[in-house]
Each structure stands twice: as C-alpha cells, then as structure tokens.
C-alpha cells in the first residue's frame, strides 16, 4: 500500500504576489472627492410675451464687469461685503405687519444692519430675487466666487431658521442626509429640509451675459 501523496504546491510566494498587487493598487488609488456648487438650469421654453413683473425693490442686481468689479444695486462693492449685503436684502422683510406679504420670521438681516425692515428693500424672502449679470469676459474665478457668496448668504439664513425650528443647522442636516450617516427617519428629515428651503427659497436668476464691449 504505497500511497503516493500528491506533492503540495508551494504557497509560500503567494504573499509576495499579493503584496505586489497590493502595492500597485495602493499607488494608483486616488480617492477623488469632487465637490462643487450645484445648479439647476432653466429649461428651454418657447418665448412668451407674458412679462413677469418684479418690483424693483424686490430685485438685488449683482453686476460683474470684465475687470471683475462688482456693481450691486448701482453701488460699487467689494466681494467681501457681498455676503452681508445679500443677507440683509433677503432677510429684510419690508412688508408691514398685517399685510399678506408680511414675513414673521425675518430679522432684518445681520445684527449690525442699520436699516432693518427697510420698506424700500425686499418685501419677504419669497419675493426677493437675486439677479446676477456677467460680462462675457468676466473671469470664471470671479463668477464662482460671486455664486459662492450668494449661496453662502442663503445657507446662513437657512441655518438660522433651521436652528430655531429644529435645533439643527440646515447645512449639517443636508450633509447628514447626503452621507447617509443619519440614523433616524430620513423622510422626516427631508421634510424638515423642505420646510426650511421654503422659508428661504433660492431665487437666483442669471441674465444672459452681455456681449463684451457693449
């Protein structure tokens, strides 16, 4: 009974091979995390004659020229002041108490705003529209910086309201939902987000850029 054992394959080099592959994947891995400012473009619609009339006081016009200078409601402005100006405009709540447009959660912008509830500025956040106009030669850097400041203004106000209503900041709420780290009722959280979004709806309009030189 000479039982011939099959010779075992030497698996000693297995670790080496696996290490080699491991090192290859280690080197080539780039855990890329792309982040950015999301936007929804307006759909293409046939032109209508119907004009949407927005009162001038409800409009916040941000004009960027080709030297990357800012003109906000006909005043020259530095980029660093834009966020504050936008917050003051959105949160103004100029409509008097008792009217249909009255905004009961508006605080008149930042604490140091000298002109709170100015009747000459926006009626309520729902009416307030920010319009950005670019020159074709505006640099992309400036364009993104302006968009960033305006989104920051919205986020600041949404954070404030969210904190007041639910004790949790809006940006943190949406982040938790995005990453899936929130363990509770996700639909409920989504609902909360929508409530806050409704208080300060993002109304950013973008005019088609003027031809350069005009």
């Amino acid at each position, binding site marked *: 009974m000479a039982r011939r054992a099959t010779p075992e394959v030497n698996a000693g080099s297995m670790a080496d091979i696996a290490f080699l592959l491991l090192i290859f994947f280690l080197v*080539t891995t780039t855990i*890329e995390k792309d*982040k*950015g400012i*999301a936007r929804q473009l307006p*759909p*293409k619609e046939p032109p209508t004659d119907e004009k949407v009339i927005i009162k001038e006081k409800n409009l916040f016009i941000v004009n960027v020229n080709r030297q990357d200078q800012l003109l906000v409601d006909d005043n020259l402005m530095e980029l660093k002041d834009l966020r504050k100006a936008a917050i003051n405009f959105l949160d103004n709540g100029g409509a008097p108490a008792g009217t249909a447009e009255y905004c009961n959660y508006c605080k008149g912008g930042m604490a140091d705003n000298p002109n709170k509830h100015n009747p000459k500025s926006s009626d309520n956040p729902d009416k307030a529209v920010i319009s950005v106009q670019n020159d*074709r030669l505006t640099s992309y850097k400036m364009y*993104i*910086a302006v968009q960033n400041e305006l989104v920051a203004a919205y986020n600041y106000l949404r954070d404030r309201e969210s904190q007041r209503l639910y004790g949790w900041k809006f940006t943190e709420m949406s982040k938790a939902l995005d990453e899936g780290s929130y363990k509770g009722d996700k639909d409920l959280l989504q609902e909360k987000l929508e409530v806050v979004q409704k208080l300060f709806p993002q109304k950013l309009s973008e005019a088609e850029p003027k031809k350069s030189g005009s």
Partner: protein
Amino acid sequence: MAKFTKKKEGGLPPVSTASLPDIVFMLLFFFMVVTVLRDDNLLVMNKLPKADQVEKLKKDRSVYIYAGKPSARYQEKFGTEPKIQIGDKYTDITNIKFALTEARQKLLPELQDKVMVALKVDEETNTGMVTDIKQELRDLNMLKIIYITTPGNEVEQ
C-alpha cells in the same frame, strides 16, 4: 513537573505566517474596490476656483466637461485659446451635443435621465465660454450642472 521540562525543550514556537496571505488579500481587495482608475487624460489646464458652500458629486451619474487653456505640452499644437474637452479629446462648441450624448450613453441606463454635468473649468477662463456650454446643455435638456471647485474661499486671502 515533567510537563514543564518538555516545553523547555521545544523552545519558542515560530509565529505562523500562514494567515499572512489572507490578510494581504483582504487589503488587496479593499484597494481594488475603492480604486477608480483615472479615465480621462487631461488635455487642458485645470486649476479649479475656490468655494466652500459645496455639495458632493454623485459620481455614477455624471458626465465631465473640462475647459481651459491647452496644457503646456499641447500649446504648441493647439495654441493658447481656451478649449473644451469631453472624454479624451478636444471638442468644438458646435460639436458638444454629439459628444455629450455619446458620454451619456456610457452611463447605466437607469441613471441616464438623472445625469448631472460636472463642469471642471479652469479659473482663468472667461465666463462667456461657460455660458455657451450652458446654452448647449439647455438645448440638450441636461439641466443639472455642478461647478466643481476646490475647498477654500476667495475672500479670505
């Protein structure tokens, strides 16, 4: 007592390395799964602008558009005028629709309606070019866009 003496004779047993391949394989699989091989070869300069009010991009449903001046090594051939890149080649503004439809077809069928266009545009580019791209996207009814940025803030420097 006999037991102790016996152990002494055997000496320290060598650590078994039999499980080493398993551990290494585990690591290997982890990295294989998370690895995304870069599929686009950048032909344009791509220094992204800074922003901090950002959202995350869902990678499985996005199409990339790059724009900017041609990279240094292509400048001799293509000049320094900003160009648009989709996939692996330069695309003309008139040709964008075709290239984008093609890129969209590479996505999973159930995600094709939810496609998101990621714009990776160099900060030195003019806004006019971005506007042109956006007009084309509106024609194509691809309305969700995201401007990819790097962390930071333009004001704080």
